[in-house]
């Protein structure tokens, strides 16, 4: 039995030109099947038994993750969401306030602005990081000398190795209006000094730049992995057929890449909606509320103003938002993502 599996996998991982190895392996297996022994017949499980066994295996496999999550995540999540109906400062007992926190939330301009900022940021961040990553991945795919490709890949991945906080610190210095190096180099291009972190107009772009700088590399590598997974036969067949680069890209590469793009979009959005480190360190949400994100208002409510109930209400609102967006993405994924 092991041999059959080995044959199969070996056949598939061999690069055959044109002739599909699938059919050959399958034929071999068919031939083997006809000669089953009475022992094998005995071992052949019933349909119901198979389903039950599979379900059991399923639960078994999922158990470590599920158990851990229930204990360490689900419990605290439910606790903190439930907290949103209370008013608590940790030192005095919690007081039930029902929906008061939510009423206040919807009238609190600062919170609403922070959510609006967050949504705007997410749009910009995810679109940009995925686009940059895709372009980079495609550009790198075609880069010939392997060592050059290796160098580029390492270079673009590097920013991810710095912690978000460290990156934010370093960039705060570099983006200073008067003495930061960024403005110095822009000055060489005759661009006037931009008040990056001190003006509402430029603070958000500054954060976008820092975030993309850090994250694009990860998605690039993800896409590179996806691109290298392309079944070469299909691409070759298309080229022989005369499809130009653009058509190849649009009709073949992207659909084949869609599971990766899907994953990247989901993760990218969930991450961007919870943006905290960069704006917190670089601008503290300012100037005004220009860079205040949802998680920042939640954090400040809980730990600055000692209003944990209110903070939990904000967290719940954010959670609902993330859930809705993710569900929408999954729904879209049903329609657009192509699995082989």
């Amino acid at each position, binding site marked *: 039995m092991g041999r059959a599996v080995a044959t199969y996998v070996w056949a598939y991982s061999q690069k055959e030109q044109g002739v599909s190895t699938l059919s050959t392996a399958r034929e071999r297996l068919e031939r083997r099947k006809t000669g089953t022994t009475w022992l094998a017949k005995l071992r052949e499980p019933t349909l119901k038994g198979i389903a039950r066994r599979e379900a059991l295996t399923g639960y078994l496999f999922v158990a470590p993750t599920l158990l851990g999550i229930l204990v*360490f995540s689900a419990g605290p999540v439910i606790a903190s969401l439930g907290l949103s109906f209370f008013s608590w400062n940790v030192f005095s007992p919690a007081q039930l306030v029902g929906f008061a926190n939510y009423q206040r939330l919807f009238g609190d301009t600062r919170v609403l602005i922070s959510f609006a900022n967050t949504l705007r940021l997410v749009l910009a961040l995810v679109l940009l990081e995925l686009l940059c990553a895709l372009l980079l991945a495609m*550009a790198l795919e075609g*880069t010939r000398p392997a060592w050059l490709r290796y160098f580029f890949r390492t270079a673009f991945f590097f920013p991810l190795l710095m912690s978000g906080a460290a990156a934010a610190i370093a960039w705060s210095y570099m983006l200073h209006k008067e003495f930061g190096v960024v403005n110095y180099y822009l000055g060489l291009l005759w661009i006037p000094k931009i008040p990056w972190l001190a003006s509402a107009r430029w603070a958000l772009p500054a954060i976008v730049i820092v975030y993309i*700088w850090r994250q694009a590399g990860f998605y690039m590598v993800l896409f590179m992995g996806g691109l290298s997974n392309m079944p070469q036969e299909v691409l070759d067949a298309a080229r022989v057929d005369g499809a130009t680069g653009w058509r190849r890209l649009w009709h073949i590469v992207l659909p084949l890449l869609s*599971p990766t793009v899907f994953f990247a979009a989901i993760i990218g959005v969930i991450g961007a909606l919870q943006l905290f480190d960069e704006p917190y360190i670089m601008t503290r949400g300012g100037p005004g509320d220009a860079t205040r994100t949802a998680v920042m208002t939640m954090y400040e409510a809980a730990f600055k103003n000692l209003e944990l109930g209110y903070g939990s209400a904000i967290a719940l609102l954010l959670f609902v938002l993330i859930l809705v967006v993710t569900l929408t993405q999954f729904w879209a994924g049903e329609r657009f993502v192509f699995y082989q």
Partner: protein
Amino acid sequence: MAGKRRTALGQVVANWRYRFGRVAITMVLLFLSIVVLFPFIWVLATSLREPAKSFSVPPELIPKDFVWGNYREVFRRIPFWKQMTNSFFVATTVVVGQVITASLAGYAFAHLRFPGKTVLFWVIMATMMIPLQATIIPVFVLITKLGLADHLEALILPSLPTAFGTFLLRQYFLQVPGEFEEAAKIDGASDWTIFSRVYLPLVRTGQAVLAVLVFNGMWNEFFRPLIFLTSKERFTITLGLNDLKGYMETGSISVVLAGIVLATLPVVAIYLAGQRFFVEGIMMGGLKG
């Protein structure tokens, strides 16, 4: 599909355009990689300088006199090696743990059928949608009740299950065509064999990606170590480096940056060392050899 016919001359021209395009792209990539790497160079250069000179413009990327004192200061101010060890311990343990749990769960969600699968999947996904700061107090209360406060295990245990990793590996498992499983099943292979011999080898990329990301994430974590750990000698390096900022942020920026360089080095080393594996993983994880 009607293809474009090419004359011989047209073909030559196309070749030239292709090559020119290639060179142009490579030039752009080169420029971009310098831009992307620049902050590292700046951080390194500034950490080797007197803080008074940090802001000279034009920036002295190659410092005239190397001030190693900043690095010495880092070692003087914090128990550097101990904290490094802590970070390593936490990061590697979690990586191994997560690769295991995520592979199992990801496979189950991708290819096994069991009642309540969708619900369970969304329960797990949902935990990714709550920011860390919102649940930190209940989690800390739990940690304390388990007696893990101020221990590195407090960082490790809750991180062994992973919603992100499960989701990631599920995607990779989904991309493996179903024919494999059919063939193996026909032959009476047990579920475990199908999993470990057929599917698992094909998702090496996913595991590699997860490993690198998780290592990175655990290494650079700040908030949970802040809340869970109290004694300096139990701190992870990222947390420990904060001490360099000094009272009311009067610490020297060169020292802070030196700390950042020192903390980033091991991650870089691991990444470079694991590159080979990474490359293999990417190449191997797919359907072409």
